[in-house]
């Protein structure tokens, strides 16, 4: 049975179901009484404060505590209220949780989930509350997913909890109240499995997170100009569905990467080099990127809008790759 749920309601349902399924699942967070934006609603009443564990403002300790809990047989979920809060925890994420399994030579794995809430800019949140920090954790080898629909949010969070490695779930701030159809029963969307969100034959637009809906809207505008865009959502950023992406590029031969992370060493840069190395023979035009600018997000409205990827510049890029001959 499916219902209309918001992003955070879908995530809440995933947590409720996984906590019921597996007693080892525990959630560590700050400001638990605030219940997030709804993703933590009712969990403490259902499972008690031994499993929904409230911490002081100590992101580094919170993350390390989760690692220790995992080594002791727990299956921790760490709730970061805002994306930038992973930065105070950086050592515990990238130098501890991510590296311990290899350094231990396989003696143990760290089955931790990081819920990175409130990712990206949403208007006036300025430099320290507008980040999309997935390239940092991907660079460190932390499995990373970013859903673009409530249904994907539930299925990817479920996978993250069940996976025996650290998995970061990046939750776009602009989508948290967005509603969509979600199946009630538990389900998991495997890692490394992208999805074609719109089938097209002329150009592949790779979009993720809140940019998927933007790309779909642009695709309709482009269709009016006679351009049939395929919108491909990786969903799982690391590991990447290489075969799925290559298949789309093989079909269209033209690629625009639509990514709200920094231009230099951002996620689109990695996608671009993968396509360039692997799909060169299929390409009919140079790959184009529409990304966040390489600056701190400024506060004021027009200057914030200027540095973020948007439909106008996506459509310009699509026209440019279509005009290439």
């Amino acid at each position: 049975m499916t219902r209309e749920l918001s992003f955070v309601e879908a995530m809440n349902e995933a947590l409720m179901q996984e906590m019921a399924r597996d007693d080892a699942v525990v959630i560590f967070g700050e400001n638990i009484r605030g219940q997030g934006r709804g993703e933590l609603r009712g969990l403490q009443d259902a499972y008690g404060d031994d499993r929904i564990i409230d911490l002081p403002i100590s992101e580094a300790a919170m993350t390390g505590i989760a690692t220790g809990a995992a080594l002791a047989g727990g299956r921790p979920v760490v709730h970061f209220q805002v994306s930038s809060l992973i930065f105070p925890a950086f050592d515990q994420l990238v130098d501890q949780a991510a590296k311990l399994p290899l350094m231990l030579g396989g003696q143990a794995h760290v089955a931790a989930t990081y819920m990175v809430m409130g990712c990206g800019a949403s208007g006036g949140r300025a430099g320290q509350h507008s980040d999309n920090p997935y390239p940092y954790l991907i660079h460190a080898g932390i499995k990373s997913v970013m859903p673009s629909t409530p249904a994907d949010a539930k299925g990817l969070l479920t996978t993250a909890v069940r996976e025996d490695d650290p998995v970061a779930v990046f939750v776009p701030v602009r989508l948290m109240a967005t509603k969509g159809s979600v199946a009630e029963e538990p389900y998991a969307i495997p890692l490394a499995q992208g999805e074609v969100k719109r089938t097209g034959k002329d150009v592949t637009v790779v979009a993720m997170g809140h940019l998927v809906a933007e790309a779909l809207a642009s695709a309709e505008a482009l269709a009016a100009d006679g351009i049939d865009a395929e919108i491909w959502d990786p969903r799982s950023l690391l590991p990447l569905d290489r075969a799925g992406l290559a298949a789309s590029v093989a079909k269209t031969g033209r690629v625009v990467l639509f990514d709200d992370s920094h231009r230099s060493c951002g996620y689109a840069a990695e996608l671009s080099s993968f396509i360039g190395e692997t799909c060169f023979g299929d390409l009919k035009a140079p790959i184009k990127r529409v990304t966040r600018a390489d600056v701190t997000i400024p506060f004021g409205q027009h200057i914030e809008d200027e540095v973020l990827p948007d439909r106008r510049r996506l459509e310009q890029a699509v026209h440019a790759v279509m005009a290439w001959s």
Partner: protein
Amino acid sequence: MTSSNLDAASLVSMYRQMRLIRRFEERTAELIDAGEIRAHAHLYIGEEAVAVGVSAALNTQDITTSTHRGHGHILAKGGDPMRMFAELMGRKAGYNRGRGGSMHIADLGLGIFGANGIVGAGAPMACGAARMFKNRGEPHVAVPFFGDGAMNQGVLLESLNVAAIWDLPVVFVCENNQYAITSPIAEMSRGSLAERAAAFGLKAETVDGMDAAAVFEAATRLVDRARAGDGASFLECRTYRFEAHNTALRASDLTYRTAAEIERWRERDPLTVLAQRLDAEDGWAQGDQAAVDAEVNAEIEDAIERAGESPRPSADTALDHMYAQTYPGFPAGVSE
């Protein structure tokens, strides 16, 4: 073993453990000089009484986290010298299959969560394990070892607070060896470290870290307290590192401390302190000590020989163990 039966046999057992660590470290330095170990190491020589005294109060279901100077903590909790040497030599028989080296040796089966190259980083992991023990009603205790330098690291201070507010079964063991690499603790901190821990609401004690029996007695009190559900505590062990910060820095050791200071501390060598006590209280003849030393030396030589026989991991396994679950093309290699 509890303080009430700290008899001659227990003291001899602690002496033997300390001698094992001392010899392990002496031979490690020689193997580094000989090129048998292709890395440097942070030697525990001088601090043996801390690891041995504390570990004698623990069992294998209790867990420890350790530091960059971790060999002593691992041996004291029952670590196998052969598998440790094999790890230092980067061999397959090593505890971490040659993936970790000196600063990451662990034995999860013995409750050793592992050494750590980042100062203070193990403390929150100990708290996380302790939280699971408490949630599950298990009587186990978590012991993070760390140095005086870690007392100025944020994550450790965060961990002290969390352990206090949650009444966790954690005994924080601070090995105050007086120097954070080369920086004297007196210049890096104001006030006593134990008083700082007490300000977090932890029961805090200070003990002579050169006296294994005293460390054992203090640790036993605090571990028993944690096991009984009476909460977290902090044990500052005043100790001293006889050697340089690590084997790479031996030549530059005297830039920050004097030979006279090192000599004063060497007079309180923890092996000598315990041997003298055994001799005075129990008539431990010089022959008994020599026999233990000879037995330990033979055990270490045997461990080195067997470690050296283990093969090196083959190149085609270099990407192994990063993930429990892998996918096509993931993790990525050096080229396509």
